[in-house]
């Protein structure tokens, strides 16, 4: 009898119950054996399978509402009806292979080349694997792996979810997501958080769940309960409460104001932020305007976008706009040097802007122009600062443009260690916990299999946050958090206990964090922080918070 409670990493704070449906599993490698059917029969079978897969991918591309996902699916369709591949398959079948085996081997040739080309093509390798799997399944006449679409609400269980899978998810019928792999910053976790779907990721024992199992997914406890009893189900009513007053400003039970802000990518995100009761913006990422551009957009285009955001928030509310953060996972044609050996540690963020001061000058002019006739408070922030001199340089550039409030992100461990000196230069700091964890724990945000190190509960990360919080208290300057950590209702309490006074997150996370903070006093937050900081691993930190509650 398998365990009735399976644990992983909870995303969100809701609990839901429903029937399990699994995503189609991997198709096994077809054996390399001599075909028994004539070559022309196997060739016809393989050709038909590939045509079927191409047609299916094109249908899915047309149905996807996300432009990126649709582009990936269209490229995958071309991989299925690739003429060079078809030629290779015919040769392999003529040499005695089965259709399924020929498909498998023909793709393998390209897969090896793409895999050898390095990280830039890694996603294409995943796309190819997906197409190959579909084509082999179609050729063998076995079910094609994919996202279920039963027409009733269900709990999706998968090994992990790829962007191409989630683009097609009808989120209206997915009650919760449970994955065997993935950490708190994995694609699945980010998606779940942004859509407000409870999830438990990195739940290794989820491989024992089968279609039709009835389970309770309790994200707040990071638990999946198989065949829950009535006591378990009672948690549903208490945990799945609704927000009585979504527009009440964030504060602790004893009245300490904690600004609850939204992370946004542009004017299109403003409505959702306001509807969720955001008191302002803690991170306005400006990269969207610049992506896909061969050169920086001109000042008037930037002013237009910035003014729409600045003017949407009421008088006195804070809008923190981050200047262009190029490099590493988001290289830009006009800023990023080609083929850096290690882009995460190279010319990125403020470093790229110092190398191209004209891009920063235009952006700061545009921000100043857009901020001139609005009543919200515009704060300007620099990404990827490692030492106080960089902060001083940035603040001086902002002052030259008449921008009175300038601060920096704390994403590099040295910036956390030197935060008091940085706060002597900058008006505020905001901790980017995702990158800070990546650099502090030496773990790539995209890497699989390292979930315990990517966990924002890691005391190695939280002790750095404590240093920044203490520096904020000593200097009297604001310290915020704008990474994934801020969206975790329990971790939000710990961050407040460490001295953080603003939390910025995806809008759907705001109401849960607001309710969580309203239930505790500042002293209780400090006690929780002490309990967590006394541990030596993320797992121990999560156990400590459970004991302390």
């Amino acid at each position, binding site marked *: 009898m398998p365990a009735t409670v399976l644990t992983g990493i909870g995303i969100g704070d809701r609990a839901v119950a429903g029937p399990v449906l699994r995503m189609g599993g991997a198709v096994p490698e077809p054996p390399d054996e001599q075909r028994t059917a004539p070559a022309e029969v196997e060739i016809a079978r393989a050709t038909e399978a590939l045509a079927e897969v191409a047609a299916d991918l094109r249908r899915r591309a047309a149905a996807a509402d996300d432009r990126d996902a649709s*582009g990936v699916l269209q490229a995958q369709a071309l991989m299925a009806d690739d003429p060079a591949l078809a030629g290779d398959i015919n040769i392999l079948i003529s040499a005695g292979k089965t259709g399924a085996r020929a498909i498998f081997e023909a793709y393998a040739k390209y897969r090896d080349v793409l895999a050898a080309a390095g990280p830039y*093509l890694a996603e294409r390798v995943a796309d190819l694997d997906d197409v190959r799997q579909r084509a082999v399944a179609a050729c063998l006449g076995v079910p094609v792996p994919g996202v279920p679409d039963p027409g009733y609400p269900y709990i999706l269980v998968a090994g992990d979810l790829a962007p191409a899978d989630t683009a097609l998810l009808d989120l209206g019928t997915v009650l919760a997501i449970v994955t065997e792999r993935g950490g708190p910053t994995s694609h699945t976790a980010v998606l779940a958080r942004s859509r407000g779907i409870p999830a438990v990721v990195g739940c290794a024992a989820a491989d024992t769940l089968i279609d039709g199992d009835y389970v309770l997914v309790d994200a707040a406890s990071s638990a999946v309960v198989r065949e829950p009893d009535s006591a378990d189900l009672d948690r549903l009513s208490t945990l799945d409460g609704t927000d009585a007053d979504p527009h009440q400003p964030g504060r602790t039970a004893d009245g300490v104001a904690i600004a609850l802000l939204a992370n946004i990518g542009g004017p299109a995100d403003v409505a959702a932020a306001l509807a969720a009761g955001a008191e302002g913006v803690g991170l306005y990422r400006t990269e969207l305007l610049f992506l896909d551009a061969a050169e920086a957009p001109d000042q008037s285009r930037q002013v237009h976008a910035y003014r729409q955001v600045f003017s949407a928030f009421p008088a006195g509310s804070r809008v923190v706009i981050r200047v262009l953060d190029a490099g590493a996972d988001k290289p830009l044609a006009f800023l990023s040097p080609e083929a850096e050996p290690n882009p995460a540690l190279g010319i990125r963020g403020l470093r790229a802007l110092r190398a191209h001061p004209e891009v920063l000058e235009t952006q700061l002019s545009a921000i100043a122009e857009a901020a001139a006739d609005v009543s919200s408070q515009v704060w300007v922030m620099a990404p990827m600062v490692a030492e106080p001199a960089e902060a001083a340089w940035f603040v001086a550039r902002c002052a030259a443009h008449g921008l009175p409030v300038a601060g920096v992100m704390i994403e590099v461990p040295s910036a956390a260690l030197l935060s008091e000196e940085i706060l002597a230069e900058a008006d505020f700091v905001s901790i980017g916990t995702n990158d800070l964890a990546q650099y502090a724990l030496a773990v790539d945000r995209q890497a699989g299999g390292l979930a315990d190190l990517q966990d924002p509960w890691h005391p190695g990360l939280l002790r750095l946050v404590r240093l920044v919080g203490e520096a904020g208290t000593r200097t009297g300057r604001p310290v915020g958090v704008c990474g994934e950590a801020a969206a975790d209702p329990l971790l939000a309490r710990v961050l407040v206990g460490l001295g953080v006074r603003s939390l910025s997150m995806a809008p759907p996370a705001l109401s849960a964090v607001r309710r969580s903070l309203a239930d505790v006093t500042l002293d209780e937050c400090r006690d929780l922080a002490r309990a967590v900081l006394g541990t030596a691993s993320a797992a121990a930190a999560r156990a400590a918070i459970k004991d302390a509650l």
Partner: protein
Amino acid sequence: MAERLVAVANADGLHARPAALFVKAVTEAGIAVTIGKAGAAGGADARSILAVLALDVRHGDQVVLRADGDGADDALDRLAALLADANV
């Protein structure tokens, strides 16, 4: 034999979406076109997205397009313009 030398302008090189658009345009042109990196011998079938991806063409890399027969010049002009367009 018509031939064009062009630098790929898209920031992502000929990897994801741009590769798909290019292969589609070649297929629609209806003639056999090869693509290779400048200086390298031979060329890959430009109607094959797998072969195009395998070239690993990055932003700024120069590629050579080749085609034969009627309409080859016109087709190559259009395809070269596509690769030189950073927004593709």
